[in-house]
């Protein structure tokens, strides 16, 4: 794996694989590999892949799905990919109610390019391009992707979940609680089910990037699960089909 140790990308890849197999969707699954840390996903997920230019995964997914409605198509995108350079494609795909699935890894920073400010960077957060911390008056405020996509009429399922465990209270407690992993997997399955029902699904995962945050893995997990979730509250933002009740 090329993912950094402690990064949630590897976990998400495993959960997606597991969800695909639980729903027996491996054969018809096509993943769109977005520019960012998820771009090498084709090395790990044994399904069909199409690479997308930076930010354009929802447009590529639209092209696939419109011509081949029998396929299951999804992307794993970074926050910069989905909410900065690719925001127009995301919003318009949601607005058209494309039956596609977008997973967004929200770690409040550009990971692959080495730690620059993302649209999700918190106020005050130091990045390589906000050395004095992000300031509302200069760089604006963070974008809440889930809230934004949920406000689009065409979107059917909008959820924010976490791949990061709650604060570790004692040093011998395991980093990942089984329950949180199971929850994340369920959310992924829900997103795929919504696509199979013909709806647009967007799931954002709170994640870490300890390397670019200049923290230890443990500090990063605590920061994400205590600070990031304040700016980006977890929960169900939209569930038109009631997939979570089923």
């Amino acid at each position, binding site marked *: 794996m090329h993912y950094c140790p402690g990064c949630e990308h590897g976990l998400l890849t495993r959960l997606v694989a597991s969800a695909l197999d639980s729903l027996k969707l491996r054969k018809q699954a096509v993943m769109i590999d977005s520019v960012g840390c998820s771009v090498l996903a084709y090395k790990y997920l044994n399904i*069909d892949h199409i*690479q997308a230019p930076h930010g354009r995964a929802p*447009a*590529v997914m639209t092209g696939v799905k419109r*011509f081949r409605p029998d396929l299951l198509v999804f992307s794993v995108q970074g926050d910069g990919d989905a909410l900065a350079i690719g925001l127009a494609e995301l919003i318009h795909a949601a607005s058209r109610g494309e039956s596609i699935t977008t997973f967004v890894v929200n770690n409040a920073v550009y990971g692959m390019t080495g730690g620059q400010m993302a649209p999700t960077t918190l106020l005050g957060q130091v990045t390589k391009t906000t050395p004095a911390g992000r300031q509302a008056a200069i760089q604006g405020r963070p974008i809440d992707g889930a809230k934004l996509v949920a406000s689009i009429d065409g979107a059917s399922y909008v959820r924010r979940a976490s791949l990061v465990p709650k604060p570790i209270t004692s040093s011998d407690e395991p980093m990942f609680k089984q329950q949180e992993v199971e929850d994340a997997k369920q959310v992924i399955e829900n997103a795929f089910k919504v696509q199979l029902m013909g709806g647009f699904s967007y799931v954002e995962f709170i994640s870490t990037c300890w390397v670019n945050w200049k923290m230890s893995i443990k500090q990063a997990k605590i920061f994400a699960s205590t600070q990031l979730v304040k700016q980006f509250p977890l929960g169900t933002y939209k569930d038109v089909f009631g997939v979570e009740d089923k």
Partner: protein
Amino acid sequence: MATLDASKSKYSNNEKMFLEGNEALAYGAINAGLNAFFGYPITPSSEVLETLAKEFGNPLYPNFKVFLQASSELEAANMLLGAAATGALAMTATSSPGFSLMQETISYAAGMEIPFVVADANRAGPGLGSLGPEQGDMWKASKGGGHGDYRCIVLSAHTVAELAQTPFLAFRLAFKYRNPVIILYDSYLAKLKEGIDLPTVEDLMVDRSWTVGQQNEGSRQILNSLNLEPDVHEDHEAHLQEKFRAMLEHEQRAEEYLTDDAEVILVAYGILARLAKKVVNKARGEGLKAGLLRPIILWPPPMTLLEKYVDRETPLLVVELNAGQLYEDVKQAASRRVDVGFVGHLGGSVPNIGTVESKMRRLVYGRTGG
């Protein structure tokens, strides 16, 4: 208003239609077996989008499965990429500023080896420019255009009827090489109306063995342009360059009009080829044996034919709606062995015949002669 009904398509007998270039391109694409069209409005190519919007869902065209207006040329190009990756005969039409926006995706498609067709109704530029015809996108279309070193085959047309034939050839070549193909026309031809017979074409058989979504157990397709290991990427680029060399070798195509005995040969394409034919005919009436070499495919340029006339020491006059783009290819073929003249016209209109004639005569008789 033109409509393509059973009596006017390959599905039945042909009948003359009075169409503007954009409409002919749209019906030509349907006739070629178009599966998916994505587009964004822009003058002067919007009528391609509008014509296909009107014909989408027509039970006569069961192959035409997807029509979608995108939110930008960026989105349209990437929809194209997705549909083409699953094996659709996919196409868009745009004009110069929109063609600029699509270059990134065309580069990705060249790198990922995904075939699709982009038609560019070249208007005058740079910037918002003017809405009239120009051939300023010639280099962008034929020398890559996006990032990286790649080429696309570029088709040209000089009549509405010929424009209607380009989609079939474009799809055939796109799939043959697994590479994007550009149809480069211009504002003039886009809006010019002519009576044409829509081309009757056979069903296009293309190789789809590489596409995603085949759902075969145990085999999977990865369409990717990324190789972080330099030696792997070196091999990939070598493979791509091999394809571009094969295009150069096998896909040159040009019309030779009265060139056999010519004392001077005009080189012109698109709308200017019509003007050049007039110049040739008039010159012949006046005793000057002029000819026209009209590239039908702009890239690869017709180097073999150009070299033939250079070997005969025939002076060449390139006439373009730009500051000299195909001119560079012609000069390369000439290798300073023959005189190469140039008439370049910019701004959104065509030069008058007199300008071309006087340049041609100067080339043949010298500054004082003729």
